[in-house]
């Protein structure tokens, strides 16, 4: 669905020829919902596909809002909202094939959605009933990783495995602007580079690592760092779902065809708190938030659909209704999620029999059972 500029004739959507203010920022859709041309990247989708991206973003935002609500009501211990990052996640998520493999942080609810992961799976760790709990190989979506940046090395190693197996697929490693300071992320760049591993490093630069702004993490724009490691880096408008899709698709295809890693910096904004435990009013101005609200990824896609007659009011209402239905379903399945049996903590520590597991399972089991009313 993404085409090169040369072969992109016969477009149905109107385009204007005006670049973004930052000449290095790849943008295909302005905040006003206008398509713009870019010398390297272009996109030409069917109206249904454009609508699909809009629908994804609305549903993902609604799922995310439900996560926050569930935390506020005590059903989750914590939630890490993605508010404002829907375009970066849906664009990069829809760029992947089923054979590709994604390594998320703990905020990639939108990517999970695109990879067809049941959203309820994401809630388990935040509710405290497991520490991840899904089979990563079922949807080629690795477990959420909480230690900052660790997963970029796992992604690189997985890509080295794909490379050895000759698989026609690529890996995408998600991380944030804060993680870019971690040794592991920079080591992942080195390992990927010298092995020419088929991995795309997708950084959602949401400007804030909890309370620390970009200038506490780097003094050279992040995408430029890739050059020092020997592979290309590109900065894309992270609130432009079309640009995120086009750039990530090209980067993954590049990796799949043996051309090695690439860094994509999706320049976006964390409109909400770092997590439900955070209070961003202590460290950032409301002016900044207002400025980014005007660049909202969903509003611009809606404006685009309206301007081009790709969707009408009834469609938008239907999507909103669907979002509420999805949220209600998630809520129901969250609050009815059973607590694990205490004895189950011994179950999956080791693959092979382990005497201490057996001994302690028996000892603690007998102790817990000795209480009246124990299950």
């Amino acid at each position, binding site marked *: 669905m993404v085409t090169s500029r040369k072969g992109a004739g016969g477009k149905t959507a109107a385009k204007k020829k005006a670049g973004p203010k930052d000449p290095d920022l790849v943008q295909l859709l302005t905040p006003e919902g206008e398509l713009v041309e870019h010398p390297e990247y272009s996109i030409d989708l069917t109206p249904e596909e454009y609508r699909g991206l809009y629908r994804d973003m609305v549903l993902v935002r609604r799922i995310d809002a439900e996560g926050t609500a569930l935390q506020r009501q005590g059903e989750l211990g914590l939630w890490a909202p993605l508010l404002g990052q829907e375009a970066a996640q849906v664009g990069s998520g829809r760029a992947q094939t089923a054979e590709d493999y994604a*390594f998320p942080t703990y905020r990639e609810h939108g990517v999970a959605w695109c990879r067809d992961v049941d959203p309820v799976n994401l809630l388990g760790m935040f509710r405290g009933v*497991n*520490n*991840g*709990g*899904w*089979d*990563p*190989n*079922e949807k080629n979506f*690795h*477990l959420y*990783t909480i*230690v900052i940046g*660790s997963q*970029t*090395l*796992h*992604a*690189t*190693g*997985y*890509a*080295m*495995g*794909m490379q*050895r*197996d000759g698989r026609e697929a690529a890996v995408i490693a998600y991380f944030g602007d804060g993680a870019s300071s971690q*040794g*592991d992320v920079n*080591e*992942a760049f*080195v*390992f990927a580079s*010298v092995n020419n591993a088929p991995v795309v490093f997708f950084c959602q630069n949401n400007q804030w690592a909890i309370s620390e702004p970009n200038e506490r993490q780097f003094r050279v724009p992040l995408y430029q760092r890739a050059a020092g490691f020997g592979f290309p880096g590109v900065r894309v408008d992270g609130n432009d779902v079309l640009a995120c899709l086009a750039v990530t698709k090209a980067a993954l295809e590049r990796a799949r065809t043996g051309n090695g890693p690439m860094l994509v910096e999706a320049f976006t904004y964390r409109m909400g708190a770092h997590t439900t435990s955070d209070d961003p009013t202590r460290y950032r101005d409301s002016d900044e938030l207002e400025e980014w609200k005007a660049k909202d990824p969903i509003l611009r896609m809606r404006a685009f659909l309206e301007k081009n007659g790709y969707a009408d009011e009834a469609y938008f209402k239907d999507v909103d209704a669907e979002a509420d239905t999805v949220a209600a379903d998630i809520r129901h399945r969250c609050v009815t999620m059973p607590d694990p049996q205490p004895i189950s903590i011994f*179950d*999956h*520590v*080791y*693959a*092979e029999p*382990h*005497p*201490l597991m057996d001994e302690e399972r028996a000892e603690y089991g007998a102790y817990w059972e000795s209480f009246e009313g124990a299950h």
Partner: protein
Amino acid sequence: MAESTNTKNGQTQQISLGKGLNLGLRRALEDDPKVLLMGEDIGKLGGVFRVTDGLQKDFGEGRVIDTPLAESGIVGTAVGLALSGYRPVVEIQFDGFVFPAFDQIVTQVAKMRARALGTVSMPIVIRIPFGGGIGAVEHHSESPEAYFAMTAGLRVVAASNPVDAYWMIQQAIASDDPVVFFEPKRRYWDKAELDPDATPYPLYASRVVRQGTDATVVAYGPMVKTCLEAAAAAADEGRSLEVIDLRTLNPLDLEPVYASVRKTGRLITVHEASVFMGMGAEVAAKVTEKCFYSLEAPVLRVGAPHTPYPPSRVEEEFLPDLDRVLDAVDRAFAF
């Protein structure tokens, strides 16, 4: 060295501990195409201790991988390779250099399987040459095994002799759990007779390596030889020491230790790591719990002082040796 490079001729051969590891790794690479070796300088150089000598030449750069000089990167990419179906065997060049990888080992390697509710495994072996006595500079002589043994999700073993080295490395690679594999670096050059057709002793089992009746001495890795020498010296003085090679530190296999203590009534634990919070503390606690009425004396622990590893000119005083073991035996009999 006139050592044979294969184990398939069925003949016994005299090998060093390092060679035992080399032959074991070779056989693992032959037996399973998913086995990969990763580490710094393990290719053309064959590793700083030559444990991987000749393996890259025979199995290629794709399976014996010279990695960038970044330990977290090595273990972190090994996690990804394991997730994609490989069985990486990682070489950490020296004990003191494992710490950049400590985060990946403890937060990822150890916990991944539980996090995934058993849907994925981490068949990774992390080889670490450990211990002192080679006159090295700082960070090259340490004994960090307790850090790993206390981490649920990891298995930790320590080889003490060439024959064990040959079999244990293959068994560790075949394990579906992550194994931190400690190699006694000052014993790399010790020799023994290997019969490649013998039935290997189980990996996760301790072993009585010298029978005795008066006191039990438990050790692992480089201290097993020291304790055997101490037992020989004690025999000259009329004391019969039973020596047990723990071999596995997580899980611990203490049944042979309990049986021995019930017979001898006295236990001395020996390791190069500090006495404080060392493996000996766990062994002492368990033996006190299981053999309380058999003990004729408190369990005594021999190890290092609770200081950073000292400059090598004083490491002989720092490290447990035959005299320190015999001194503890004397104290055990003084009760």
